[in-house]
């Protein structure tokens, strides 16, 4: 499983980072960058929290390229 941020939707609210600081970094302007390539099992709960936290629904959780969860 991996995380993806839609850069056209990201508005820099940084709620994903607040929910899962290990899984996202923020660029200088506060836009989100996924920090981890492949999620481990114990990161999934945080990843889901980050998906749910995004006010723009810009973060997705993907399973080998297909959209597993929004």
């Amino acid at each position, binding site marked *: 499983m991996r995380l993806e941020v839609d850069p056209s939707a990201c508005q820099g609210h940084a709620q994903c980072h*607040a929910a899962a600081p290990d899984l996202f970094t923020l660029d200088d302007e*506060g836009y989100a960058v996924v920090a981890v390539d492949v999620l481990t099992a114990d990161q999934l709960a945080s990843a889901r929290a980050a998906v749910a936290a995004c006010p*723009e629904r810009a973060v997705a959780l993907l399973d080998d390229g297909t959209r597993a969860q929004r």
Partner: protein
Amino acid sequence: MTTIPAIGNHFDPMSPELGADFWPTITSIQQTCPVLRSEAYGGYWLLTRYEDVWNVVRDWESFTSTEGVAGIPINKSDFRFIPIEVDPPYHRAVRKLLNPYFAPQRMPGYEPAIRRIAAGLVDRFRAAGRCEFVEDFAQRFPAQVFFEVVLDLPTAELERVEPWLHAIIWEPNTAGPAVADFGAWTQEIFDRRRREPRRDDVLDAMLFGEVDGRAVTDHERACMLTVLIIGGIETGATAYANLAYQLATRPDVAGLLRRDAAARANAPDEFLRFEAPALGLARSATRDVEIGGHHIRKGDRVLCYYGAANRDPEEFPEPERLDFTRPGNRHLSFGAGPHRCIGSHLARLEFTVVLDELLSLPGLRLGTDQPIGYRVGLHRAPAALPLAFTPEAGSSI
């Protein structure tokens, strides 16, 4: 179109007549008429369901902010709070300029000063065992933090802006002159700052930074600083007064938060859900659209009532309960969509600090037997909040 007989068709959520019936009335409207037409303020639709509010605030193309959001009547002046009353793509360019100063990574740098300011205010009354929390703390703390820590401005300037801030929050539909005065004051501030040494903060960004590859104009600067200050001060003042009331009247909750670290970590968001400081903000429909079976016409005003959305049982089971274990608390006190509050990270940090201070006051309770009177405008908060607690000397832990 349906009306609730007891509510009539001129419902005004800011009416002081609602009094202690405020929340029961809002809840009743949500249950019976979640898309309520009111002819007050020139006519608007009151949206109280989570799903409807969530959809509207994200759909900026169908629901524009450019006719004004703070106050229901359409804003006919030249003044717009920027970026809250402009649409994308320009909105995004402004947020790009301002976001870095409110980003999570700035917060650790602000924290020591925020804690010092809070402790300093509480230390003034800690030994007395009593205070009037609104005047002694809630009105002062976010204001000092915002001016000293975020804006790097002398707190003496606060005395000048306070009357305008109060007009904008508590009499939003007639606050035009206050907004104009506020704008003129910002001009003075910027003129002064321009002559000072450069620094990496939001005022300098507004002075020397760019939007869409060109310099920020004087007018834009005035519009930006005004709304940043309103958001940075008044919402916090409301939130902390409401927090103090809850803790003073629910010793069981205070006790839980003192001993349960997980509950305490979730507490800011649960209190914010329970009583959204900015109860509702407006939009204008840019096209005809259906919401909940009602036909909203192009040009109609819509009030996205966050306070009610936060108590929608379809999103928050048992919404009237303060529950610090809610999974993924997606409350709308910071809004959603492109205009989502830029200051949410600062707000949460401040809230945590205030919570720590209040929980450090032993035996915290109301300091009066009289019912607490509330002010209602864009926000709803105690007009005055006498508190009592066991007196203690020295500073907080």
